[in-house]
């Protein structure tokens, strides 16, 4: 059973890693002026909710399967995702707003955030991999 949990987490984590990379690529495209703010933001906003759901599922899964350490590790990031999503002002087009992304260094902070998430997901990836192997051996 445990191995199933970790296999699922692993797949989910892979998806999140790809998503982070996609975020980074798209944002750096915007930085380098290859795409405009509008298309960049509409691309990224589409993936904000899937990312949120994907990550929340893993976090909840860890809670249910009583892996406290991994749960606590995931909790801050999941909370941040949800907080960020909820706190979008009513007039904005989403977490990434084309009219503001170039202001006040927002682009940089989005970039930083995506980088941190990538690192975090990579860490999780190896943790899940290790736990999965361990679980498979134990089975």
């Amino acid at each position, binding site marked *: 059973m445990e191995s199933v949990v970790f296999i699922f987490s692993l797949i989910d984590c892979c998806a999140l890693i790809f998503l982070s990379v996609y975020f980074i690529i798209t944002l750096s495209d915007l930085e380098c002026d290859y795409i*405009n*703010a509008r298309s960049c933001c509409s691309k990224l906003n589409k993936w904000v909710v899937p990312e949120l759901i994907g990550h929340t599922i893993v976090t909840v899964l860890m809670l249910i399967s009583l892996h406290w350490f991994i749960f606590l590790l995931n909790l801050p990031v999941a909370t941040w995702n949800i907080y960020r999503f909820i706190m979008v002002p*009513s*007039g904005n*087009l989403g977490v990434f707003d084309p009219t503001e992304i170039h202001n006040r260094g927002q682009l940089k902070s989005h970039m930083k955030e995506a980088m941190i998430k990538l690192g975090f997901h990579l860490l999780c990836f190896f943790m899940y991999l290790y736990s999965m192997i361990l679980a498979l051996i134990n089975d």
Partner: protein
Amino acid sequence: MSAPAGIPPRSAAVPGGARAPAAAARPPPCQNGPVQNQMQFPFGYGLHLENYSASSGHYPPVPHEAVPSQLNNQYVADYHSACYSIPVQSVMTTSVGPSMLNTQQLYSGAPHPVESAGGLTQGAISSASHLHTSVPQSYSAVSSHYSSSTSSSVASQGFPLSSGRYAMPTVSSAVYPNLSYPSMSVGSPYGQVFTSQSLPAVGQFEETNTFPDQSSTVPRTLQQQVPLGYNSTSWSTSDFQSAQDNFSRNNTGSLAKASNQINTVGIVDSSHPVSQNVQFTKPGVETSVVSSAVTSSIRTPVGDHLTEPASVPSNTQPSESLLQEAIDSSSTTSSASPVINNYDALEGGGYPETNSAASSPAPTPQTSRTPKPFGYGYPTLQPGYQNATPSTSAMQPSNPGHHSGFQQYPQQYPGVNQLSSTLGGLSLQHSQQPESLRPVNLTQDRNILPVSPVLAPVPNLNSDLRKLNCSPDSFRCTLTNIPQTQALLNKAKLPLGLLLHPFRDLTQLPVITSSTIVRCRSCRTYINPFVSFIDQRRWKCNLCYRVNDVPEEFMYNPLTRSYGEPHKRPEVQNSTVEFIASSDYMLRPPQPAVYLFVLDVSHNAVEAGYLTIVCQSLLENLDKLPGDSRTRIGFITFDSTVQFYNLQEGLSQPQMLIVSDIDDVFLPTPDSLLVNLHESKELIKDLLNALPTMFINTRETHSALGPALQAAFKLMSPTGGRISVFQSQLPSLGAGLLHSREDPNQRSSTKVVQHLGPATDFYKKLALDCSGQQTAVDLFLLSSQYSDLASLACMSKYSAGCIYYYPSFHHSHNPAQAEKLQKDLKRYLTRKIGFEAVMRIRCTKGLSIHTFHGNFFVRSTDLLSLANVNPDAGFAVQMSIEESLTDTSLVCFQTALLYTSSKGERRIRVHTLCLPVVTSLADVYAGADVQAAVCLLANMAVDRSVSSSLSDARDALVNAVVDSLSAYISTASNLQQSSLIAPNSLRLFPLYVLALLKQKAFRTGTSTRLDDRIYAMCQIKSQPLVHLMKMIHPSLYRIDRLTNEGAIHVNDRVVPQPPLQKLSAEKLTREGAFLMDCGSIFYIWIGKSCDNSFIKDVLGYPNYASVPQKLTQLPELDTLSSERARSFISWLRDSRPLNPVLQLIKDESPAKTDFFQHLVEDRTEAAFSYYEFLLHIQQQICK
């Protein structure tokens, strides 16, 4: 091709094939010369996409389906069958009455032939350039091609086509096709450098006499350069001489002609610059160029009234010094290829001390002996700060009122000495300290407000550069001395940013028509006065330091008609220039001027009665709407349904088409809703006459603004243009409906002010869609109740529109607002307009822009997309110093605004500002521009209050003062710590910040309606600095005792100059009458026991009691005091484009709170007085 208008095909991005036939199919518009159509388009477009990459997705290079003539057939066929079955309740026809006005011609005479002629030249010229560009593929290749190709190729390819049409001297015109330099007449009072250079128009042939002189100077410089290792001259002196002969021969011929033509044109005197313009062209063409320049210059003779016509810097000195500069710079880099490290040497060497001494008439003697060229040393080099009146006024001919500004310093000096003696410990080096660093004890010095308007500080540059620098009216930096590192900037605690007014109405603007616009090849900076010429053939970009080639064509200077003087070209002599761009700068053929009016006709709106005013203003200004023969116009009205007006030519009267399906609004007859203004003028007039009465009995209270805007967007998206929305209440139906969010009980809350941000993203999305289709939405909100401006304003904010708000508007109950609407509309309809514009702000490597303020959409890191640009729009940017500026002593900023003029010309207006870099904190403070800093802070505070909270923003404002002053005090260690000291440059900082805190936008505790607050915020974000300063800190004058003391003369009128008064009730006396200039409104306050003679002579009433409450105009009385008062007020009015409304306020009238709220130095229930504020700051500093 047959796609419906609302959904432009995204795949149309491929230039070339799909496009050229489309262009050919159109009736040839003005811009496209007949030659151009088939082959040139692909290249122009291809090139363009690299530079102004308009990106793929949302900004499709606007499709040719846009062109109405094509839309007609297929669209109608498709769409009608599909949509007409949808519940159109009725397509009903309102009778508007028989056409009562006599028929008019389709074109209003003059413009048409002029346009076409202009188009032909343009076509021919651009075809010439295209034949060039068509050989190589990229820009770099082009320029190399240029430098190697002989001029004869240009002549043979380009001009034979047109030579049949224009009688022109072949050689000169072919090589140097056209640089029109229409500036100003000699006789005008605004003498600028160029007029003064032109010879007195005694005889035209006298000009040829100058050529021997100039040619003699040029060979001399060449000879001088040889010893310095300059060896790349590709011509010999004899060649040069012969070319020179050639010119002079041509000139004699053409000038004779020129004099005739000028007479026929009758606009400009026979001044030197204009005659060049004439040289190549026929009268018709000439008129187009000149008149366009003249219209732009006539429109508002702003501000420059004070300019001394006498300030004529001599011609030869600057030019020689520039020659010298070129030689010097070439000497530094003569043999080796330029190394990045020696910029400093290069740029320093470019302006040696001797030049500054030689070219400035009366410099202080130590100027020439400064150790470093750019005057790090304030102690010694300070021509700007000392009151060397003769030199500075001569250096600043375009700067209004510097004369008077400098006069005030002598008066202050006694005060300075007293102050310093009281303070003690300041005697050290005091005499050498610049004026702006003089410490001012704020708590003791009660009269810190100068008697005359505060002027922008002059950057501490040498006199040559200062003379060339951009006018502070267009371009200002918060720190005129740029700190070298971010650490130093952080230490100073002052904001770093730029305030721009790029599209300002200018009295004098060099317009350059050149087939190649010289730009840096790596950073695309336009050539400007601050580049350095390494030698005759190369110039170094002042922003990225790349060395570029000077194109062959640039070697010829059409101003002096001499060859080999690239540094004398007008691009290099003026920091504000306008280029007429070639098709490389177009994504599509320039769009016509398209105006769409979206009018609210619900019960509320009809009751307020704005329709009459709008229709009347439109009728009056219909012929003055900027545009050409292609101008189109349309109308949409809406209540709970959306009404369209079919104005197709040939109809006997306008047809109203009602669409009641507001959930999925569609265009009933897409092709006849936007009609040509000239062809359908009768119908338009009929409609405007009928509109005010058409809805007089309406009972419809709902407002479907959202659907109407969607329809307007659909209508405009093929062409782009301007949508003017008139709205009178909260939108209550369909998409974008809003709910009331204001709680009236919270209006005077001191705690939290909510709902400063938009409630829905509908308007933002719409604005972005509009911006993508080059459409701007301007909002006129005329409401008596809360209308959620915070949400509605988004439609203008992000589409580069403008916002007007008339609270409690009523045509009869509130005549002041009605008059204001009328005046604003007049200005709005007739002012200049630029379409499909983009603006890019570049700055020297090391600086970076991180935040933008204003109405626009930031499309990519430094590119602002402005669907429309108007002369009243201001912008601000915040900057940071990313890399330290150690290897340079100058930084430059360049704004390039590319736009389509209403005449369908693609133009680029370029402003360049140059500022010195300093290393010491004291110098940073010395160069602080307090007005710019306050305006930038206001912009930042608006952002803060929306993103965080109002109280945060207020705290941030106070902290800005506290931090900067405490940082200053800590640097000046010998100051008394107990008192509040500010450098003279920042002495008004606390006052202005206090005024900001009492602004409607940021005040708390005083009852402020949410919409008023939001509107003030919108204005802060979008107004240029001049207007914003008036809004933040109005000017108060006493006007009952105007004298001619210190008066100035403007156009034969004597304008008295009363001193500025402190904004405090202590200055008001019951015996006096005061004028307060708040920018958009003038208040005249009359005391209870005001002098009867003033009331009689100026107001025309026997005594105080008989003066009516609502007086909005001063009567024209034939008395001296009335004349003085009126000439003063009209002088104030002329100095700004928005015609302010005059409001008379009697001491006991209820409107006096409007007046008293502007007295910012006084204490109110909820806010500090100025003195208390100072004490508060002092407390904070001591903490």
